[in-house]
C-alpha cells in the first residue's frame, strides 16, 4: 500500500495539533507555578499547622460550670455535654436542612477526659435543665446554691465561669485562691481594680487560668502572625476592625423566660456588687445592656477584635484610647452605647519597616461598631508594603507604592489589585496569585476549616488546651498576661466614652494615668455617659 502526502496529512493531521496544545498547556502551567513559587519564596510564609495537644490522661478532671445561660450551654457542648432540648432541636433542624451539620459535628467531636460534676445557676430553670440532661446514675451532677459552695466543696478541680461580667473576677479569684482551675469568659474583669486583683490571684495560685478567647486557636491568626513578623506587610500604620449587627439577638435583646420570677431566680445573688434594685427580668436576661453587669460593645465585642489582633501583633495595651458613640439604634432603656468608635494609639509600636530607619513608627487600631447595620466590613491590616484581610482565611494584596515589592510590581509580577497570597486552612495548599474563582469561594466561606478532615469548633480546641495544661503543664494561649491587656484596653475604651476624653496608659508604672477628681471604677460602674459628666465636673 502506498500512502500519498495527502493521505498522511488527512490521517495524521491531528498529531501536530495535539502536540502543540499539550506543549503550550504544560509549559504555561509550569510557568505559572514557577512564578507563584517565586512570590511564595519571596514571601516565605509558613502556614500554621494545628499544634499537637498532649494526651489528657489519668483520672478525669472534675469540672463545675458556673452560669448555664446561652454561653454556658455552648461551653458545655464544647466540653462534650449537650442538653436533650438542644439535641432534639438540632435533630429537627438537620432533618429540615440536610446541610445543617451542627449535631453531626457535635457527635464527631473528640471526647475530653472530664466529668461534669456540678452546676451553679441562680435561675432554677437553667440549673434543672443541666441536671436533667447531664446527671446520670453513674455520674450524679450536683447543683450548688452558690459559686462559693461549689468552689469549696472539694469536689471540683476546675470551674468554667460564664456569668455576667461583674461576677467574672470575684468568682475567678475565689477559685484561684482555692487552687481550683479557672476558664473565664471575656471580658476578663468588670473594673480596673479587679484586673489587678485577678492578676495577683493568678500569680499566687497553683491553678491554671485561661480566658475564653477561643479565636486564639484559629489557624489563620497563627499564620497571620508569621506573615506580619516576616515583614510581608511592611510597617502597619492602621488597623481597621468592625462589628456590624442588625438584629435583636445581636443587640442583646434575648428572650425573657416565661418562668422567670422572684421564686425561680435568686435575684440578690445575681446582683452581687451591682446596685440594689428591685427584681427586673429585663436586667436579668439582657444584662449586657447595662454597665452595672456588663460593658456593652467595648467589653463584649471590642475585646474579641482587640484580642484577635493582639494575638497576631502582640501590641499590648495602647498608650491612649479615644472613644465616641452613643445610643442611636436601640433606645430601649439601655445605658451602654450601641454605636461605638474606638481609636487606640500605639505610637511606639512597629512590626518592622522596609523604608529608611526611623521613618515609620506607630500605629492606630480603629474599632468601629454599630448594632444598626449588618454590612460585613472586613478586618484590614494596612501596611506600607501590603494590605491583609484577616478572617478565617487570609488574603494579602501588595500596595502599589510598596518599597519591598517595587521590583516585582515594576516588572508586572505583582499587581496591586491581585492578591499575592491567600491562606485557607480548609484548602489543601496556600494559593498565591489567587484566581478570581478561588477568591470567590474563599469569600463565600465555602472553604471550611478542617483538621484531619473534621470540622472543628475553636472553643473546643481552646478548652481542650486549658484541660491539657491542667494535666500536662505548659502554657495556655490566652492566660493572665493576655487577659490583663484585653481587660485594661476594654476598660480604657469604656472610660473614654463615659468621660468623653482621652484615657492614657502609663506603661512603665502599669497604671492608667490618673485624672484629677475621677475614680475610674466609679465611672465604669456608673450608669451611662450623660449622667456621669456633670458629677465628675462637680467633683473637680
Amino acid at each position: 500500500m502506498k500512502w500519498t502526502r495527502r493521505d498522511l496529512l488527512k490521517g495524521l493531521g491531528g498529531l501536530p495539533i495535539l502536540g502543540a496544545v499539550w506543549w503550550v498547556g504544560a509549559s504555561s502551567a509550569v510557568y505559572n507555578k514557577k512564578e507563584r513559587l517565586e512570590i511564595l519564596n519571596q514571601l516565605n510564609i509558613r502556614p500554621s499547622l494545628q499544634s499537637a495537644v498532649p494526651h489528657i490522661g489519668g483520672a478525669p478532671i472534675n469540672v463545675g460550670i458556673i452560669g448555664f445561660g446561652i454561653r454556658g450551654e455552648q461551653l458545655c457542648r464544647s466540653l462534650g455535654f449537650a442538653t436533650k432540648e438542644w439535641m432534639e432541636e438540632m435533630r429537627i433542624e438537620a432533618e429540615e436542612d440536610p446541610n445543617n451539620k451542627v449535631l453531626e459535628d457535635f457527635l464527631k467531636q473528640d471526647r475530653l477526659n472530664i466529668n461534669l460534676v456540678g452546676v451553679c445557676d441562680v435561675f432554677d430553670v437553667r440549673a434543672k435543665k443541666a441536671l436533667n440532661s447531664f446527671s446520670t446514675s453513674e455520674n450524679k451532677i450536683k447543683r450548688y446554691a452558690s459559686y462559693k459552695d461549689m468552689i469549696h466543696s472539694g469536689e471540683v478541680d476546675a470551674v468554667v465561669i460564664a456569668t455576667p461580667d461583674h461576677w467574672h473576677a470575684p468568682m475567678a479569684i475565689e477559685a484561684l485562691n482555692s487552687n481550683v482551675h479557672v476558664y473565664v469568659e471575656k471580658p476578663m474583669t468588670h473594673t480596673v481594680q479587679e484586673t489587678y486583683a485577678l492578676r495577683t490571684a493568678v500569680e499566687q495560685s497553683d491553678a491554671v487560668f485561661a480566658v475564653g478567647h477561643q479565636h486564639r486557636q484559629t489557624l489563620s491568626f497563627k499564620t497571620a502572625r508569621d506573615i506580619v513578623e516576616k515583614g510581608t506587610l511592611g510597617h502597619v500604620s492602621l488597623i481597621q476592625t468592625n462589628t456590624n449587627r442588625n438584629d435583636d439577638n445581636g443587640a442583646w435583646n434575648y428572650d425573657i423566660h416565661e418562668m422567670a420570677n422572684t421564686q425561680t431566680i435568686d435575684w440578690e445573688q445575681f446582683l452581687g456588687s451591682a446596685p440594689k434594685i428591685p427584681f427586673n427580668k429585663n436586667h436579668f436576661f439582657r444584662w449586657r445592656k447595662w454597665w452595672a453587669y456588663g460593658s456593652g460593645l467595648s467589653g463584649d465585642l471590642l475585646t474579641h477584635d482587640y484580642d484577635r489582633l493582639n494575638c497576631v501583633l502582640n501590641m499590648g495595651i495602647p498608650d491612649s484610647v479615644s472613644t465616641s458613640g452613643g445610643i442611636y439604634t436601640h433606645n430601649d432603656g439601655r445605658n451602654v452605647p450601641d454605636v461605638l468608635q474606638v481609636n487606640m494609639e500605639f505610637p511606639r509600636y512597629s512590626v518592622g519597616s522596609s523604608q529608611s530607619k526611623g521613618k515609620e513608627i506607630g500605629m492606630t487600631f480603629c474599632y468601629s461598631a454599630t448594632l444598626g447595620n449588618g454590612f460585613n466590613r472586613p478586618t484590614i491590616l494596612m501596611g506600607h508594603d501590603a494590605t491583609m484581610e484577616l478572617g478565617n482565611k487570609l488574603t494579602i494584596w501588595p500596595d502599589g507604592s510598596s518599597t519591598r515589592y517595587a521590583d516585582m510590581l515594576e516588572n508586572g509580577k505583582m499587581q496591586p489589585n491581585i492578591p499575592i497570597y491567600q491562606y485557607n486552612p480548609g484548602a489543601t495548599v496556600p494559593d498565591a496569585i489567587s484566581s478570581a474563582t478561588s477568591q470567590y469561594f474563599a469569600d463565600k466561606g465555602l472553604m471550611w476549616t478542617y483538621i484531619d478532615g473534621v470540622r472543628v469548633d475553636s472553643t473546643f480546641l481552646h478548652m481542650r488546651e486549658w484541660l491539657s495544661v491542667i494535666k500536662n503543664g505548659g502554657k495556655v494561649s490566652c492566660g493572665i498576661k493576655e487577659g490583663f491587656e484585653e481587660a485594661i484596653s476594654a476598660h480604657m475604651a469604656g472610660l473614654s466614652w463615659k468621660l468623653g476624653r482621652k484615657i492614657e496608659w502609663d506603661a512603665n508604672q502599669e497604671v492608667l494615668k490618673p485624672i484629677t477628681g475621677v475614680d475610674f471604677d466609679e465611672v465604669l460602674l456608673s450608669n451611662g455617659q450623660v449622667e456621669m459628666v456633670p458629677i465628675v465636673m462637680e467633683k473637680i
Partner: protein
Amino acid sequence: MVNGKRERRVKISITLLRIFIGWHFLYEGVVKLYNPDWTSFGYLASAQGPLKPLFALLTQETFLDWVDALNITALIVVGFTLILGIFERKGALVGIGLLSLYYLAHPSFPGLHQINVEGNYWFVNKNLIELVACILIYNFPTSQFFGLGYFMKGKLTKIENYEMD
C-alpha cells in the same frame, strides 16, 4: 456532485468542531495535570441544584483525589480521541458524561444564583451547547475523513476512488 460538495463541507465543519472540542478538553486536562495544586474541591463544594448533596459528598477527602485524577484522565482522553480522530465516538461519550456533570454541578436554572459565569444564561449555557456538539460528533463520525481513522482498512481505496470522481 452537488451533494458530494455539500457533504464535504459538512464533514469539514464537523471535523473542525471535533478538533476544537478536543483541543479545549486537552488543554483543560494538561493544565490541571501539570499543576499539582489543582483540585476540583472549590467547584464541587460550591455546587448547586438538585445534585448538590452528591457533589458535596465527592469533596470528602477519600473521594477527592480520585475525582481529580479521573477528571484529568477523562479530559485528556477526550482530547486525544477527538483531535487524533480515533475512537472518537467513545471519546464523544466520555465528553458528554463530563459535560453533564459540569452542567449539573452548576446548572443555569432560574432561581439559582449563578456563580463564576461570564454571561447570562437561562437553562442553556456553554457547557450544554458543548455537550450537544459532542452528541453531533457521536452521530457524525469524521475520523475516516480526517484523523487516524483514515488509515482504517478499506478506507484508503474508497477515498482514492472518491478523489477520482
